[in-house]
């Protein structure tokens, strides 16, 4: 049964991801992308990474895609214009795609590359827990064990990354406000 579900959800994910790239209408593209993210969350559930699945829906399908829809609506890009990419972009995209596919094929057929042992189901810290011997498990508490001991430094770096992004938001929005003598005021500003 999980096998069947895996093929179902991965087909859903891949198909809708493909439709994102070919759809002319940007709103259609955004909708397919939401479906793709939700399908990916289902795959996380099948991998027993339940906490990640919830976060995938919360952050990607629920937050990032709202921003995407806002941009599409802000620019009124729903109608869709065909923009032919130039030669350099096409060549770079082709090479990148080929590299990705060959990498996937290599991982699929190289049996030792991807670990396939199921995660242990533990619910508590092991005796004499130190920063290095904490195992991964399926419960949501176990994410905390790893994140606040072993991976503390990357975690703090993420904090600074978020701070930089916040400053970036202000810089971007302020520049839009002060460009030109008469700021680019939308026609209906108080919508």
């Amino acid at each position, binding site marked *: 049964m999980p096998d069947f579900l895996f093929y179902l959800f991965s087909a859903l994910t891949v198909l809708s991801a493909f439709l994102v790239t070919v759809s002319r209408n940007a709103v259609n593209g955004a909708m397919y992308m939401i479906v793709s993210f939700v399908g990916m969350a289902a795959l996380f559930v099948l991998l027993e990474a339940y906490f990640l699945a919830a976060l995938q829906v919360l952050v990607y*399908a*629920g*937050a990032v895609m709202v921003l995407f829809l806002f941009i599409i609506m802000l620019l009124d890009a729903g109608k869709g214009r065909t923009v032919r990419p130039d030669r350099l972009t096409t060549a770079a995209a082709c090479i990148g795609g080929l590299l990705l596919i060959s990498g996937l094929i290599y991982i699929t057929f190289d049996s030792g590359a991807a670990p396939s042992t199921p995660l242990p189901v533990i619910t508590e810290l092991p005796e004499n827990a130190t920063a290095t011997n904490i195992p991964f498990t399926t419960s949501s508490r176990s994410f905390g064990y790893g994140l606040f001991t072993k991976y503390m430094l990357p975690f703090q770096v993420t904090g600074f990354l978020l701070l930089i992004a916040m400053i970036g938001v202000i810089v971007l929005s302020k520049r839009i406000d002060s460009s030109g003598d008469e700021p680019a005021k939308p026609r209906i500003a108080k919508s």
Partner: protein
Amino acid sequence: MPPELIADILWKVLFAVIFVVVIMTFAAYSVLAERKVASWIQGRVGPNRTALPGLSAIPVIGPHLVKMGIWQPLADGVKFLFKEDPIPGHVNKLYYCLAPAIALIPALTTMVVLPVGQYTVDGIAHPIVLANIDIGILFILAVSSLGVYGIVIGGWAANSKYPYFGGIRSSAQMISYELAMGMSILPVFMWANGTEPGLGGLSLFNVVTSQQAMWLGVWMPVPAFIFLTALFAETNRLPFDMPESETELVGGFHTEYGSFKFGLFFVGEYAHMVIGSAVFTILFLGGWNFLPDFGIDGLEWLSDPWSRMGWFGSVLSVLYFIAKTMFFVFFFMWVRWTLPRFRYDQVMNLGWKYLVPAALACIFIYALIIGLIDIAFAVEETPAIVQ
């Protein structure tokens, strides 16, 4: 597939159908309750004419039920069903039809992790819930965050200005308050995941059992208030009903909708309200715990009398939980007819400049308080901290 598995699946489908029917009935009757409460507050009578042939002819009870408007939701449903189902020529047809479904599905899905009571087997309490999973509240937050697409797509697909403004406004409002809501529940889960390791996680049942000594709303009033305010904004209820704000935007995002497509938005909003009230009751009002027992030995019967009464106790726990939830549904209506609507800039300023910083401050403060409680009451067990 083995027959036991099929039987198991069929049982689960049956339970799911029962849950959906019960919650939808509550949603339908809270529409009636809203109309009745509105009329009481405004000194009117409210719906009191709808009668069913036969049932309303029963002496004494029949006319009384008619006066209470008990058959009104049925009449509303039938009217929705037989009205013209318009698809105006200027709309984007696919998304126009899809949007009401997108609005309803999250509201019907979040109830899957909602425990409504408890039953006891061999002295261990289990929740009465469809799916006992440990990501509980995160599942509710994640799935209900998808509900914003119903409104924003509905407003966009209508190809009309007022729905468009309504959709954009409400999506910005919903994401802002989702933030405050998510942060305000963190102190609750800090307390609910106790010092002993175990399968606590984010499950809502765990939160209820952790409140036997004291309901969290009592000593966490500020997070409770932030959560309640955010809940009003998330369900688009007055004083936060920006997407509708009928005085400026006609009907907001559903201006161009009619028939049961509008009905789905409507039912979705009330189902959201019922489930939101239930979640608030679980998080801050002790769920189905009878009264707080202050952690005193021998007083456990005060917080959990249900486990001593067998199956009757489970039924009582469900009824007690529903009573608490219904009080909050009433509170929603009471507030609606008491407070005027906020202006949009006030809504956004309240969310970002007051609720989010306040929720952040609460996390700091309760981390310190809970840490001090743990150190003060568990000194002999945790020498590592004292040293």
